[in-house]
C-alpha cells in the first residue's frame, strides 16, 4: 500500500520541475527545551484564567519531553513557530510533518495536539488520546493506534489541501485540510483547554522537501552521477547514509520498488542513471 502511495505521489509530481532542496527548517529534537532551540519555539501556556497562569508540569529527560496536565483540564501548554511565507511546498516539493509521541493518558477529550496552517491558511489540527488520532477540523477520528507506546507519525502533502497520515511507516488515513485564519505556523504540545493528559514527545519537525524521486539518493532533486556514491553508501552503510542524508526519502534508493534498498536495486539504478 505504501508503495502505491509513493508511486501515486511520484506520478502526480512527474511533470513538475524541481524547485529547490531544503533541510528541515523547523525541528525540536529533544536536545534542549524547545524555547532554548535556535530558532526558539514560542511557548504558549496558561489556563482557564488566562495566559501565563498554570501550565503543565514539564520534564525533559533523556531527550523526552513529558507533559502532565492531569491536575487541571483548563491547562494549555504548547509550542509554536511562525514561518511567514515559508510553509507551502513549491512545484516538485512536499510538505512533511513528523513527530514521535506517546499519549499515556488523556482525560476529558483528546489531548495533546499538533497542527499547522499553510501560507494560504489551510490547516490540519490533530488531537490524540491513548488509542486514537482525532482530526479536529474534520471532526472525526481518523486512525486508531496501539496504546502504551511511542508511535512515529508522518503527515505529508504536496498541495496543502489534502494530506496523508502515516503511523509507524504505514499510511493510515487521508484527509482534507480546513481553512482557518492564521497562516504560516506550526504548533504542538498540550494544546487543548478542557482536556488533560500525560504524554511524551520524542521529536517534532516540519519540513519542505524535494519530492521523492526514484534513484535520487542524495536528494538534490535530480538523478545523476552525483547519486552514485550515496547509492553505494546506502547499500553498504545504511546508518552512515542516513546520517549523511537525514532529509532524504528512504524510498528513493528502492529503485526496483520491492520495499527494501539492497543489491537488487543496483541494475535498475544503473539503468535509470543511463536513461534506459
Amino acid at each position, binding site marked *: 500500500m505504501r508503495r502505491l502511495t509513493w508511486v501515486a505521489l511520484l506520478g502526480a509530481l512527474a511533470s513538475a520541475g524541481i524547485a529547490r532542496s531544503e533541510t528541515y527548517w523547523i525541528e525540536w529534537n529533544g536536545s534542549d527545551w524547545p524555547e532554548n532551540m535556535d530558532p526558539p519555539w514560542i511557548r504558549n501556556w496558561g489556563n482557564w484564567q488566562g495566559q501565563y497562569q498554570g501550565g503543565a508540569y514539564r520534564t525533559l529527560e533523556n531527550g523526552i519531553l513529558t507533559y502532565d496536565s492531569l491536575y487541571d483540564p483548563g491547562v494549555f501548554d504548547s509550542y509554536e513557530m511562525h514561518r511567514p511565507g515559508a510553509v507551502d511546498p513549491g512545484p516538485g516539493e512536499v510538505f512533511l510533518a513528523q513527530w514521535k509521541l506517546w499519549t499515556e493518558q488523556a482525560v476529558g477529550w483528546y489531548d495533546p495536539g499538533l497542527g499547522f496552517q499553510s501560507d494560504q491558511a489551510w490547516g490540519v489540527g490533530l488531537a490524540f488520546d491513548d488509542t486514537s488520532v482525532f482530526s479536529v477540523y474534520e471532526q472525526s477520528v481518523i486512525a486508531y493506534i496501539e496504546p502504551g507506546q511511542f508511535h512515529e507519525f508522518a503527515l505529508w502533502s504536496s498541495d496543502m489541501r489534502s494530506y496523508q497520515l502515516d503511523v509507524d511507516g504505514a499510511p493510515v488515513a487521508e484527509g482534507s485540510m480546513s481553512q*482557518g485564519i492564521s497562516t504560516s505556523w506550526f504548533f504542538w504540545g498540550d494544546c487543548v483547554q478542557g482536556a488533560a493528559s500525560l504524554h511524551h514527545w520524542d521529536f517534532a519537525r516540519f519540513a519542505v522537501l524535494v519530492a521523492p524521486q526514484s534513484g535520487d539518493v542524495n536528494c538534490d532533486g535530480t538523478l545523476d552521477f552525483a547519486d552514485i556514491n550515496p547509492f553505494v553508501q546506502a547499500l553498504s552503510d545504511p546508518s552512515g547514509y542516513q546520517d549523511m542524508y537525514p532529509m532524504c526519502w528512504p524510498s528513493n534508493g528502492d529503485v526496483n520498488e520491492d520495499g527494501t534498498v539492497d543489491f537488487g536495486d543496483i541494475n535498475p539504478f544503473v539503468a535509470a542513471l543511463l536513461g534506459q
Partner: protein
Amino acid sequence: MLSRALISLLALGWLSGLASGQNLIREWTGASGYRIFETTVWIDAPGTYKFQATDPNGPNGLGVIDHILLDANCPEGTVNVYVLRDPNEGGGYGAKGVGEINLKKTGVETNIMDVLTTVNLAYLDMIQADTISGDIGTPDIGNDITVDYLGAPTSCATICTPWKSCTAPAARSRPASPSPATGAMRARI
C-alpha cells in the same frame, strides 16, 4: 464595484496577516463545559458562555475565534453564547473576528447573545443558532446568518452590508411568543 467575494477575500487576507499564535481565547465567567483547541471552541454542555479572543499583536489587542461549535454530544438544555470582552479588561468588543458559529442541534435550545467583533463575522462559514437575542456588531459579514427566531432589536438593516441582500423573514409559530418589537420570525439574513 468590488464584488462581495473579493471584499471578503481582502478582509480575510488582512485578518490572516495579523492572526498569530499569541491569539488567546478565554471564557471569562468561569463557566465549564467547553473545550478550546487553538482557535476553535466546542461547547459540551448547556450553560451561558462569554468568550473573548485577545492577541497582543492584534488591533486593540483583540484576536480571532475561527469556530464556535456545539459538540454533537451536548446534552439537552439551553446554551447562550456571547462574544464580549471581559468587563474587568474594559468590556466592549470581544474579538477581531469570529469565523463561524454553529450551534444547531436537536434538543438543545441555542441562543446567540451579544457578539461584538471589530472587523468581521462569519468569514469562514455561517452563523447558525435557534435565536439571536443580542447585539450583533461588526463591520463585515462574510456568510449567511441563519436563525429560527430573531428575538432582539437586531434588525436586518443593521447587520446587512451593501453587498449583502436580505430576504424577508417568513412567519413561524412559536410556543413562547417573543417580544412584539421583533416578532416571531425565521430570519435568513
